[in-house]
């Protein structure tokens, strides 16, 4: 049965259905629908809901519940996610599974409460200290938010690694029909590392401190091996018209919704527009972008930031074709017309020919 929910509520409900019973949060716009929803639903299913004293405390409570073997989640928006970075680094360093939802808002500082994608670097490049990665998933609809939350829990348990869902104010507050149909994977590894009291076994220790020379390097090598495995198995993206395209758009989340509209409208043009929408931001779909870059005239990355994911696109392309960027910041959302104008500006002359004339008529 379909329900009409905001992305925030869909994320909360999907978490409950995926078996999350420990949720810790701190209010911040634009993710308030999520914490409010959890405060109602968690007691109904016998779970734990705590409004923590800060985002630092909330992620630390997640640390505890995850260490004790419970499916645990926290959510916030940009300034709050900055505070959670300490805990995320400890969770990654302690190899603990958990899900963190970031409904991004404008920054830096207090910024504003409108949609933004300016936390990409923070999310995919680590964010906290140390050589670690969180798996980062980027939904572009309410339905996909729900679907990815289920997957996030399974992935985090499977790899014993934090998973972040990177949404934005638009995805979080938008209402769309959503259906909850996914099932939890049942072949996940047993949590025999978790803290349950040392009954009939050796003690379990959850830690990230390796003071003996050489041990930390060895542990980091183990982490890197795990990250490599994640890169090999978990990359996800959506590709549209990539085979006949002259130009490829790369965008995720809300920007990807706008770019899809651009692809549709571009059917009126003489040149072909395709797009790649990364669903996993880390691991990043570099291989498909590299392959595309060998065939297209150019690539345009569209973001609600001053240009962050575009750096990963460039790393994948390695100068095989020009990589352009169009972005809006501080609550500005690119319109499809703006993106089309940018395309016209960057597409080689022979392709653009009579398109300029038509631009005013683009519907």
């Amino acid at each position: 049965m379909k329900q009409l929910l905001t992305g925030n509520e869909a994320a909360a409900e999907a978490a409950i259905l995926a078996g999350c019973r420990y949720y810790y949060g701190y209010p911040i716009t634009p993710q308030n629908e999520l914490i409010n929803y959890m405060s109602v639903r968690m007691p109904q299913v016998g779970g734990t809901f705590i409004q923590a004293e800060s985002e630092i405390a909330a992620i630390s409570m997640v640390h505890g519940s995850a260490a004790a073997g419970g499916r645990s989640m926290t959510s916030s928006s940009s300034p709050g996610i900055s505070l959670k970075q300490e805990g995320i680094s400890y969770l990654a360093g302690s190899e603990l599974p958990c899900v963190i939802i970031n409904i991004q808002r404008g920054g830096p500082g207090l910024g504003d409460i409108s949609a933004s994608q300016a936390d990409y670097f923070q999310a995919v490049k680590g964010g906290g200290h140390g050589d670690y990665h969180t798996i980062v998933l980027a939904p572009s609809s309410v339905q996909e938010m729900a679907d990815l939350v289920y997957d996030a829990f399974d992935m985090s348990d499977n790899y014993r690694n934090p998973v972040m869902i990177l949404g934005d104010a638009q995805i979080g507050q938008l209402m769309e029909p959503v259906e909850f149909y996914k099932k939890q994977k049942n072949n996940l590894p047993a949590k025999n590392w978790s803290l349950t009291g040392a009954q009939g076994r050796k003690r379990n220790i959850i830690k990230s401190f390796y003071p003996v020379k050489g041990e930390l390097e060895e542990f980091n090598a183990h982490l890197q091996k795990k990250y490599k495995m994640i890169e090999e198995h978990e990359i996800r993206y959506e590709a549209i018209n990539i085979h006949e395209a002259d130009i490829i758009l790369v965008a995720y989340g809300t920007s990807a919704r706008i770019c899809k509209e651009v692809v549709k409208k571009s059917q009126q043009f003489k040149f072909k527009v395709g797009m790649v929408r990364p669903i996993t931001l880390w691991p990043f779909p570099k291989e498909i972008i590299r392959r595309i870059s060998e065939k297209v005239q150019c690539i345009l990355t569209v973001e609600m930031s001053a240009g962050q994911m575009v750096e990963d696109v460039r790393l994948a392309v390695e100068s095989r074709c020009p990589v352009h960027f169009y972005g809006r910041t501080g609550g500005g959302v690119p319109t499809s017309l703006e993106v089309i104008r940018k395309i016209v500006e960057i597409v080689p002359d022979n392709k653009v020919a009579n398109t300029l004339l038509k631009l005013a008529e683009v519907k």
Partner: protein
Amino acid sequence: MQTIIYEKPKTLTDTPTHFCPGCGHGIVLRLIAEIIDTWGIRSKTIGLAPVGCAVLAYNYLDIDMCEAAHGRPPAVATGIKRVHPDHVVFTYQGDGDLAAIGTAEIIHAANRGENITFIFVNNAVYGMTSGQMAPTTMLGQKTATTPSGRDVINYGNPIRICELLAVLDGSSYLERVSLSSPENIRKTKKALEKGFKTQIEKRGFSLIEILSPCPIYWRMDANESMKYIDEDMTRTFPLGVVKDWEHKN
């Protein structure tokens, strides 16, 4: 026939501790191990190690343990206790950990009345980072960052955690003890037992503050340290029960 008068508690591992000579941490860990042994609660006890000189507590206590970021043990313990409400969960924290960087976490754990036992080792300095001022450093006390002694104008007064938490309705048992003599160590053990009892009987938040020597950064020998606790420290930090659910006044 041999009678055993004294032996190493089973819950203490054979790993040699890394503490300096005359340090109080080893005594407190031993007392915890003794209680776990006597009460037979090893398999249902989960401990939280701090960031501080006692970070390696998990190498010495043979129980399930979790490390937390500096100051966060009360929040991490909260998360563990919600998963295992019938287990005995305790944190072990220094004064920097609990009374400076983790002030928010301990106050709110107390305010929520978390049914957890908090073991607070007050040695009036940051031992692990080479003896800087702690929130509990006494007026006039010389540390690495108060070379001419802590003065109230620049650094304020030492924080009395038990008294601070006592005003919160959520706290149930608060006592300050010391390690300055065998008699005081016995009292410390009693206080720890009371803390664990408070939790096992689901009476709520308990915190035992232990005045503990750090001879290295007090720049004293072990004997002088004990005297210092008795003659100086207890004037700022008076010993005794600050709050007790069994004897409401």
